[in-house]
């Protein structure tokens, strides 16, 4: 583990160095183009200052910015016990010092990301679409992949490299646009230097070319390393769960949908498990400029892992499929030859998934995340009470029963999930049986005190019926 982080660090430092030089050079050239005498120094200091401030901001509040931007809401263990359990399992497997915070994003596109520059203060967010589609093993695979991004320090890399890339793009864009819109004033600068006119013109040309090329170069560097880190996180994830098939089939299910995640953008894309912005039809140029490796390849590598899930086995599977050009796992990771056997699939309690039921569960989940309180009516209907509800009583939409809303305790109820209101509970506890005297031998209707109508057929011979809604016994007397 530690060797991996160290090797990663070395590569990242080289990348930062290249990108940093790129940024400073850009600043110098632009400054020199505008003010030949001392502009270079000013340009460098402006670029470095921008970089420094943006880095500070994103290091100290990057995770909360990203979580807010993606519309993630923090959840408690009561709302989704399984997700919490899985995150805790992976926390134990990855030996993280603290439990990550868990967030849910209300979006039908299945995806997930992790954030947090330090392992003792990190967060993981999954979308509602992901929860509704994956089973336990698959969800575990996704969570393991995301936590691997944290223990491999990928989040740190994405934060700082992203900021560098952003600074380069910002400066070159501002420069190019100012050129475009104020060509008149720039001509003035160009003609002002009479002695060094020729040299000045060359600097201008170089600055323009560099402003166009630098962002592309930086992006390619950034994306290349980000792709590599995806493979590495897959390898670590498989090692943590000891079950590569879970992650493989999760990736397969996720890639089958073509929904874009509404809250993602190009800067945050490398943090997700699968590229959240899918360009349909633009497959040709996607390889060089994409933040994620092709999903089909990731799945094939995971599935061809045999005999244990340590790093060297992943590297073997990777070389077998990609032709073995460049190693994905740093050499020190390959030394990890400890045999980690692949475990069996866990038993799923309920395999039959009903689409309607799933949709309802996800709806309830999102309402729970949004602090809705659930009151269970005696008829079995879960009534969803929004947090700003202010009427003391409510009629059940199904059986019209009058229910008292405990307004003061809505927040407490929302924290624990569903609650059966006090008055309904009492009613259920001591339901006095009704007695109905039959009038003749034809069809007859019996009205229960809860308001529910029951029809009695002429052929009915029994002495008692039970109300479908409230379970009250109704004795039938001939």
């Amino acid at each position, binding site marked *: 583990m530690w060797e991996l982080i160290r090797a990663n660090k070395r590569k990242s430092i080289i990348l930062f160095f290249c990108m940093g030089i790129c940024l400073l050079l850009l600043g110098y050239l632009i400054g020199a183009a505008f003010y030949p005498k001392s502009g270079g120094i000013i340009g460098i200091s402006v670029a470095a200052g921008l970089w420094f401030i943006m880095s500070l901001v994103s290091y100290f509040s990057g995770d909360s910015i990203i979580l807010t931007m993606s519309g993630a809401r923090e959840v408690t263990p009561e709302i989704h016990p399984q997700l919490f359990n899985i995150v805790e399992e992976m926390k*134990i497997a990855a*030996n993280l010092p603290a439990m990550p915070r868990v967030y849910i994003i209300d979006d039908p596109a299945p995806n997930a990301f992790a954030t947090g520059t330090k392992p003792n203060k990190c967060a993981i967010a999954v979308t509602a679409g992901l929860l509704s589609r994956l089973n336990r093993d698959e969800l575990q695979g996704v969570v393991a992949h995301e936590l691997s991004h944290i223990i491999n320090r990928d989040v740190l890399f994405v934060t700082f490299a992203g900021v560098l890339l952003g600074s380069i793009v910002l400066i070159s864009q501002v420069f190019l646009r100012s050129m475009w819109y104020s060509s008149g004033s720039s001509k003035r600068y160009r003609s002002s230097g009479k002695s060094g006119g020729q040299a000045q013109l060359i600097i201008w040309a170089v600055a323009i070319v560099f402003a166009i090329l630098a962002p592309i170069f930086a992006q390619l560097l950034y994306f290349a390393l980000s792709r590599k880190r995806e493979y590495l996180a897959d390898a670590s994830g498989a090692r943590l769960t000891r079950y590569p098939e879970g992650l493989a089939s999760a990736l397969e299910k996720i890639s089958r949908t073509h929904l874009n995640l509404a809250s993602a953008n190009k800067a945050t894309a490398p943090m997700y498990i699968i590229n959240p912005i899918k360009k349909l039809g633009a497959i040709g140029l996607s390889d060089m400029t994409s933040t994620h490796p092709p999903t089909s390849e990731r799945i094939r590598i995971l599935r061809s892992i045999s*005999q244990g899930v340590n790093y060297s086995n992943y590297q073997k599977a990777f070389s077998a499929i990609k032709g073995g050009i460049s190693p994905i796992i740093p050499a020190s990771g390959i030394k990890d030859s400890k045999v980690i056997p692949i475990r069996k699939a866990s038993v799923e*309690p*309920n395999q039959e998934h009903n689409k309607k039921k799933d949709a309802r569960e996800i709806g309830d989940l999102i309402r729970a995340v949004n602090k809705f309180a659930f009151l269970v009516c005696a008829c079995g209907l879960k009534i969803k009470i929004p947090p700003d509800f202010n009427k003391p009583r409510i009629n059940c939409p199904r059986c019209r029963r009058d229910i008292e809303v405990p307004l003061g305790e809505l927040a407490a109820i929302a924290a624990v999930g569903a609650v059966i209101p006090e008055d309904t509970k009492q009613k259920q506890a001591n339901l006095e049986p009704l007695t109905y005297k039959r009038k003749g031998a034809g069809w007859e209707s019996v009205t229960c005190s809860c308001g529910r109508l029951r029809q009695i057929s002429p052929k009915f011979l029994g002495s008692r019926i039970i109300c479908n809604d409230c379970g009250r016994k109704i004795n039938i007397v001939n």
Partner: protein
Amino acid sequence: MGMILLFVVLAIIVFAVLFVVGVFNSLVGLKNQVKNAWSQIDVQLKRRHDLIPNLVETAKGYMQHERGTLENITKARSDAMGAKSVGDKAKAESSLSGAMGKFFLVVENYPDLKANQNFLAVQEELTSTENKIAFARQNYNDQVLFFNNKIQMVPSNIIAGMFNFKSQEFFEVEGQEKAVPKVKF
């Protein structure tokens, strides 16, 4: 001349002391990691013991014909709770795992029980606890491997010998964890 020699000797002594202190501290850190990993396993084992009465209570009403299975679990649990030494503990816990495995196989014949919300919740907790035990054990063995490597390798083995650091035992479960044959797709 004498002064330079003195300085050289002093520098070597200071360097040696710093080196010993550094290695000693990292050994203590690793040993604490091992201890911490062991306590993680303990926490999860205790959690499993706490959950079993809930499971038996929920299942009792549905499984009138399976009294034997339920009694086996209860007995295995009390055995595991009574075990004192590490070896006894490992044995009792693995027989408890076996009893639970049998129980979950039998559950397949009781669709009513499988649909019960309480049962599903307890089952999820138990599945997760079993996983946590497995992952905690894996992590414990990883930490033991780090520690043992450190105290057997040159030069840290000298310092480990000086301060009497002993290599730790792995937590192996016999017969249960064999590589599953991989199906090719």
